[in-house]
């Protein structure tokens, strides 16, 4: 009897999760500091959703409900996780099929820099920026997912954007060559004798 109930619950969850799986698992990665951490966050969110599926009364609100679960777990993880290195944040294997090698290398570097910039934001600001600026959710949708008012989301966006701008101003100003540079390489200049100092 219990096994049957559990099976039905899994089936119901998979049916609801299917249409949003790609977006939600991608968002989990973008909220995290690495692909592995994001995948782990997503798995935990799915498990939590399964355990609390009986709380979901209106299936049309599943997307918002699931993202709210994901954000809740994201915040609790942020509170207890120490900073991790971003060196292996994203899969660094060869470029995907059909992708230009140098373009992919640049995308990896840019992704690293964006992740570093987002990492300087408070978790709720990072969520607001990722959901609104990258995932394209409306402010109202983000407010429902974060469980706050629309004005609170707007305030988080303003602060988050300010911090991102400050980060980029600092990074680009200190870069030897304007534009893209690797964060991990400190700016160096040649001494008159040709030595690196």
């Amino acid at each position, binding site marked *: 009897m219990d096994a049957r109930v559990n099976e039905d619950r899994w089936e119901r969850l998979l049916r609801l999760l299917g249409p949003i799986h790609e977006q939600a698992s991608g968002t989990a990665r973008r909220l995290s500091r690495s692909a592995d951490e994001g995948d782990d966050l997503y798995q935990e969110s799915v498990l939590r959703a399964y355990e609390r599926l009986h709380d979901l009364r209106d299936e049309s609100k599943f997307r918002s409900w699931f993202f709210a679960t994901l954000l809740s777990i994201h915040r609790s993880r942020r509170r207890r996780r120490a900073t991790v290195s971003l060196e292996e944040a*994203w899969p660094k294997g060869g470029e995907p099929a059909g992708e230009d090698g140098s373009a992919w290398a640049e995308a990896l570097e*840019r992704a690293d820099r964006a992740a570093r910039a987002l990492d300087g934001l408070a978790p709720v600001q990072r969520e607001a920026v990722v959901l609104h600026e990258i995932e394209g959710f409306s402010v109202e949708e983000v407010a429902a997912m974060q469980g706050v008012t629309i004005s609170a989301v707007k305030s988080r966006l303003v602060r988050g954007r300010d911090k991102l701008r400050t980060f980029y101003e600092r990074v680009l100003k200190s870069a030897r060559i304007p534009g893209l540079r690797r964060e991990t390489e400190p700016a160096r200049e040649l001494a008159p004798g040709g030595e690196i100092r």
Partner: protein
Amino acid sequence: MNDPNATDDLRADLAALKKVSDRDLPDLKQVMNEISRRRAVEAAPIMGWRRRIMAAVQTMKARPALAALAAAVALIAVGMVVPVSYDRVTGHDVSISLAGAGFTPDQIAPTAKEMKARLGGESVQVEAAEDNGAARFVFHTTLPERSRAEAARKAGAFVKALAEKGIAASLAVAPHKEHVTSPAVAYAWNQIIQISVDGKSASALESEIKQRLAEAGVPDAQVSVKDGATGGREISVNVQRQNFGGAPAGQQPEPELVLTKNGAPITGGSTVKIRKMKDQTGATSLVVETSDHGKTATATIPSSETMSDAQLQTAIETQLREAGLNVRVEVVGGQIKVRPVD
């Protein structure tokens, strides 16, 4: 990117982040397989416990306030199970001595019965003695009242009733103590004396403080409560104890007196605690702990017995003022008074 002020670099970087992080996303089937594996691991009892403990430790690290609360709870929990031994006042011993021509041996049994009935003691023991050739009978009983005044009132009424029958009697009341071993929390509870000042005159408050301290094992406290001319109240509690080489093992520490008004502890005001500690060589160290409106300071004066009143006054006042308390100290005949300067 919805931010119109975003730089091209920021736009490009966020787009790259989406592109890179979307690569090789596990499909739903892979996710479900991984979740099944995780659930199997968590279902193992040892791993489950380990995970829970680790999760609790991580939560504590992340939330210092929660950790402090948990530590306090743990301390109370420890206090509830760790036993300590101490003396506790559980009632009062009443002794009534009857002597003289008005009392004859055949009155012993009915008097004992009446005493038991009127005072409510568990049993009455009678001790016979000879006093300069005359018989004297001492009736002993123990009353459950922890209040000395209440025990004395009951016994006094009985003595008065005897007097009305022509039997002369004298009365003695002493705290009945039991050595108990109980959890530290219970001990701490016994040692905190809460007294409400609501609607009590200075004299009523004075006698209540004295009585409650006696019940807590401090029968010799000198208590004084005076109403100030310009409002306020001065409460002084003087207890003298002499310890050589530190407190002897098993000695009961002083109870803490907490005065309340409208159900809440009275804060602010000034308190002064003076300790004189004499070592085995006879040298006395004087410790004056003063608190004034939440600010506390301690003056420690070694070899205070060699100092004059004026020297002592200057030494205490200097130390307390250096610690930030604006006070005036008076020492007369070794008696120290510390008053805040408004």
